[in-house]
């Protein structure tokens, strides 16, 4: 295998990591508050605003129902507006983030809904404000679930990132298509798949390890 190919693989790996990392961070910044709001704003809940909850729910569902490859091309004007260009790896972060936000929001919502409602009642009985309940009770208690959700989001985004070649985004997926498929270099395809497998394994392992560390619900985790 040529040194050139190894360089390409390393660069593509880095580009993939870069795209996924940045879009996960941005997705979490957007998804965390939206998911929290969705989990707390149904009728009679802490931030009760059923109307806004429904509207937001519809938007989240709509975004999630667009296939990613369609989303990438459909929002090209928006991407140009935000990133200054509509092609390239950095530009690809825009559609990835837009896909990540509603996905992470739903995962965060589920994690928060799993928190025992008795804890909310206890916090209310202490005279906590809704914001205090969210900050001091719901998010810390939901943290193991949120971490696992983010892990799932990273793995999904690794998959999505393979499609951004459509708008000139680079990375492992793009390399696999252009060299492995179009130039018929099966060894490149094989390596790309191998690297993706390793990346997913690493992400999953690290994610689960962090989730275990923040999870104090089982006695066996003492000092973990």
């Amino acid at each position: 295998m040529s040194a050139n190919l190894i360089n390409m693989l390393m660069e593509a790996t880095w580009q993939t990591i870069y795209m996924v990392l940045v879009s996960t961070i941005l997705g979490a910044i957007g998804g965390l508050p939206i998911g929290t709001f969705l989990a707390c704003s149904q009728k009679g809940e802490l931030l009760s605003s059923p109307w806004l909850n429904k509207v937001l729910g519809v938007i989240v569902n709509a975004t999630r129902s667009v296939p990613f490859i369609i989303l990438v091309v459909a929002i090209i004007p928006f991407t140009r507006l935000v990133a200054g260009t509509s092609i390239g790896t950095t530009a690809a972060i825009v559609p990835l983030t837009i896909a990540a936000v509603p996905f992470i929001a739903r995962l965060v919502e589920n994690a928060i809904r799993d928190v025992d409602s008795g804890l909310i009642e206890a916090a209310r009985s202490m005279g906590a404000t809704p914001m205090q309940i969210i900050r001091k009770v719901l998010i810390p208690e939901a943290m193991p679930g949120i971490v696992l959700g983010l892990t799932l989001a990273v793995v999904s985004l690794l998959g999505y990132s393979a499609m951004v070649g459509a708008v000139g985004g680079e990375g492992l997926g793009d390399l696999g298509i252009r060299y492995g498929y179009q130039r018929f270099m099966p060894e490149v395809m094989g390596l790309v798949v191998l690297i993706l497998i390793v990346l997913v394994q690493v992400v999953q392992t690290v994610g689960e390890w962090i989730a275990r560390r923040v999870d104090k619900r089982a006695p066996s985790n003492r000092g973990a």
Partner: protein
Amino acid sequence: MKTESSTGAAITFDKVGKSFPKKGGGQVTALEDISLSVEPGTITGIIGRSGAGKSTLLRMVNGLEKPTSGKVIVGGRDVGDAKGQALRDIRREVGMIFQHFNLLSSRTVFENVALPLEISGTPSGEIKKRVDDLVARVGLQELSARYPAELSGGQKQRVGIARALATQPKVLLSDEATSALDPETTQTVLELLSDINRDLGLTILLITHEMAVVRDIASHVAVIEDGHIVEDGATYDIFTEPKHPTTQSFLSSVTGVTLPHFIARKLQDTPPAGPAREVLRITFVGDNATDPLLARMSSELGLQVNILAGAVEEIGPRPFGNLLISVEADRAAEARAYLESHEQRTEVLGYVS
């Protein structure tokens, strides 16, 4: 603790009602016309079966539930009307403990107890000092850095109690706090609550479905059924002279004084022909509760007394006894007169041949 709301009461329920909208229209009435006042520094028990409305009643004291009619006054303030910051201020003066403890799994014992102080904006130096005191008071110094998952049920409830006391409330609400605990642990938690009541002068309002809990720590009790208070008063009076059938059935589960089956089966309402015996329940109260009264009656009247079941209970510092006996039916009136002249209460349960 009677219907008229005395001004010094810690908690006053004034003709409180609560109804919920029912699915598909209409209303469900959970509570109706509840009037009760809880004197400062007392431990008051509300006893009722599940679904009787006791949980709703308790939650009105800190505004987790709002009355749909009437008023709930805590420390002179109307909880039902309070909103926003005013309501949160009231809640900081009312601690609450729960059946399932409701501790944060992500926080250590120390951090759980600190939570209400963080919420009220207490400076961290003071939090440290106060939490250390509280954790020591409930006997968990050694476990301060542990997480709830590592504690036993009794220890978790101690954390719950320490947490409820953190903001130095005047009132403590207990929502079936011992129902998830085994009998021994229940005793230690009840003792802790008694100690707190005595040492801090805290008013405790507790709900339970166990008469034993009421007997062990409550000075006053209200019996609730189908959203109504059917009987209330000093625990001693309720135990020695229960009037309502619900109260009596709760009591039979705790005093354990019931007729043996072979006698209960033969019991008749009227004296049968031939030699018969009358079955009596005697309630020994007050200072005579520990006197050998039956022995004396037996020798003074020359009566044969047959003891069928009995127990001596203690409510607070005062003992009371409950005995089931049988005496010859034709001389039973004499026996009852003797006992009543010694200020004991008798009740004819029936006759056996």
